[in-house]
């Protein structure tokens, strides 16, 4: 048997205990999150991909046969599936293109006003955020009643005869209003926090340089809250590409359903009846995900900070040499 000195034994024991402690620490802190992450993110993601590659027999929620990319092929080539899905994607994209800028500009304007800190600004700040905490269904039902064609308060008050939820354009208008009403609170809080953190000395310097209010906003405020603006842009865009609840509540009774269906709503429709549509629904979900990733990457490239690298330094050196 190999002889071990007391020092060696003590060191080894210490190392063993230390490794065990580290393992338990990591496991204890990371474990619960890792389990939830695996269960509720990794598994659905992987299973979603598997579903997209399988067919379903309508009897169970489990896939019955591996069909490769047949579901994706159907999403692109089957006339009714392609018409319905890509039509709904187009509806969603058009809506997102309008609502995303509004969902950033409106809270930005409000945040700028609140940032002036007028009397009672805390009350107004709370009021602006408040609609976001009401349940979507409750707000939707109030809107349905308010804008009802026959008994609605809005038509009665203004003497209008417009069927707000009967016409496609007005239904989308109200969905947009609904989204803004409920959705601007989050972006507003993020932008308020961003404005609070803009270095005040920069404003002083801008004043000294003779900047006007607009120049200050353009050259100090906007660059100062750039990170928050990008965060809002990405999360809002992704959020509205997944639009569902607002359309479901307000436009389920609009006669032209093809013009009202958002992409997620259409995917949800595929789950009607039995499980036979699950494979197509999963394939549609993945296609939508890819579209969102693609547009987000374009956004990322467009909004990426252009750093000069050593260009400025090199130009300065060459200028110095030229003197």
């Amino acid at each position, binding site marked *: 048997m190999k002889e071990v000195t007391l020092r060696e034994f003590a060191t080894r024991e210490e190392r063993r205990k230390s490794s065990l402690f580290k393992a338990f620490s990591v496991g204890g802190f990371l474990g619960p999150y890792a389990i939830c992450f695996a269960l509720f993110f990794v598994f659905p993601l*992987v*299973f979603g*991909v*598997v579903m997209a590659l*399988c067919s379903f*027999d*309508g*009897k*169970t*929620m*489990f*896939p*019955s*046969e*591996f069909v490769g990319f047949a579901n994706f092929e*159907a999403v692109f080539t*089957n*006339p*009714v*599936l392609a018409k*319905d899905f890509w039509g709904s994607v187009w509806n969603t994209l058009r809506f997102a293109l309008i609502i995303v800028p509004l969902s950033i500009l409106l809270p930005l304007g409000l945040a700028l006003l609140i940032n002036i800190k007028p009397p009672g600004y805390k009350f107004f700040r709370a009021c602006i955020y408040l609609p976001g905490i009401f349940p979507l269904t409750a707000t939707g039902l109030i809107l*349905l009643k308010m804008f*009802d*064609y*026959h*008994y609605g308060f809005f038509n009665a008050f203004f003497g209008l005869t417009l*069927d*707000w*939820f*009967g*016409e*496609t354009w007005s239904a989308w208008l109200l969905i947009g209003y609904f989204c803004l009403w409920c959705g601007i609170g989050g972006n507003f809080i993020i932008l308020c926090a961003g404005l609070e953190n803009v270095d005040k000395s920069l404003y002083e310097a801008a004043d000294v340089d003779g900047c006007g209010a607009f120049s200050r906003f353009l050259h100090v405020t906007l660059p100062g809250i750039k990170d928050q603006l990008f965060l809002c842009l990405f999360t809002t865009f992704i959020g509205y590409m997944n639009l569902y609840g607002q359309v479901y509540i307000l436009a389920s*009774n*609009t*006669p*032209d*359903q093809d013009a009202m269906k958002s992409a997620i709503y259409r995917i949800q429709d595929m789950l*009607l*009846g*039995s499980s*036979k*549509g699950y494979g*197509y629904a999963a394939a549609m979900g993945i296609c939508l995900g890819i579209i969102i990733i693609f547009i987000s990457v374009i956004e990322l490239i467009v909004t990426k900070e252009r750093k000069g690298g050593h260009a400025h330094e090199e130009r300065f050196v060459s200028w110095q040499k030229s003197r």
Partner: protein
Amino acid sequence: MEKKKLIPLLALAAVLSSCGPTGTTTESSFDPLDEGDLVRDEAGNIVYDGVELKMWSVTTGDDASTQDAIIAGFNDLYEGQIHVTTTHTSRYDLETLLNTTMQFDRPNAPDLLFNHGSRAAEYRERGWLLPVENYFGKAETPLDKDDFVPSLLNAVTLDGSLYGLPMDVHSAMVVMRVDILEKNGYEIPTNYEELVAICDDAPKKAANNQLWIRGENSEGYAADEWRLASTASPYAAFPISYGDMWVHEFVGYTAAVQNGATLVDEEGMPAWNSDETAKGLQLLRDWIFPSATSYNKSALSLDYGSSYDVGNAPLLAGTAMFKLQGPWAYMNEMADFDRLLRNDGGADNITTRSLSGLFTRDDSEASSLIKGEGHAIMMMAPEKFSLTKACAATVFMDYMAYYSGIEWAKRGHLPAAISVSNSSAFKADPAYEEYIQYWGQPEDYVVVPPTVNYTYIDTYFKNALQQTLSSSYQNQTVKAILEDQYEDCVSYIELYA
């Protein structure tokens, strides 16, 4: 292969291996000689000793209370032998609950399901149902199939086997303001032409300041005080809205079948893209948007557009003479009028009629038909089959079909068993005399024939109906709308086939 790449692939392979049929369907094949867990006494009768049956029911609200009272009667009668416990779930949640339970938690699945018979074909395709007829024989529970309304029995008969016992049938009905009709010299209409005659004449009278009305108002009149209808807005006697569930669940289909349409063909495919359906839906379109060629010259209803409901206001106010309603709400309706016109007849100021003959000008056999929806009790395929439970279930089904008659009918559910609806006990009840008799014979009711494509057939028909009644689709013919929706419907069914 690198270890890093191998791990996700293995994970994917593990998930893929979950593909394939994993359901635990236990639809047993019936062996007449097998006695299973049955216990018999000396006389050879089955001994039911504390058999517990669990039933899920689609009924809620007042219907649920009535059903609980009926089932309590059964439990008292069979105390110590068979006991049925009922859980009520709305139809909006029931499908999800069934899906989850039958696939992942079958030990906790119900033994019986009280749901619409039209769902049987889809449930059976998923392997959730047991054929019931053999167990009636085994339990020696009498079953006379000829005693049930054919359309209702047909809905739960799949490939020649009975997958449930029909209990009842219901549809929407019409509530009529008798007081206003009489005051203005009108008779209670019994068919479409009589109805249109009233609805065409009433607006003319109203425009000439000659139409008497009474009811709730904000003009300072007492509710029972007669006054002349306002000339400021057109009078529409029979308001309907395409968002109204009575219209999209019952009236649209009824208009189609009364004009001779078939809803589903023998292959279980939609058959509503026909001239007959177009004729029925055109009549409904004219109801709101009369034209030079329509039979009615005045609008029977204002255009309620996308409004979900016409509401109670027009009938209570007397600004309408007719209203669609669910028969289970008629008792509430009577209570409302007892309160509103308590000094002058109360509920006697209203009456009710079925939809029979109200949506066609034809005088054919089909004109009396009403599209209905029937409940049936179905036997679920359990994880562990018990013959005693299956036999006990037939005793319960028999009780529900034959002994819940009048109480259940008061809630608008006419008995599926013809002998019950024809019985003197049924007809002797004051409720029958007062209103149930006006909802017609159960034989007049037709339900959608069994099809595994029910969800699609129903969804796309309703889309067509909604577009027909919408002002924004007036430039399209009803036939074109039907064709458009039919094509999409068939495309989806074929995609899944």
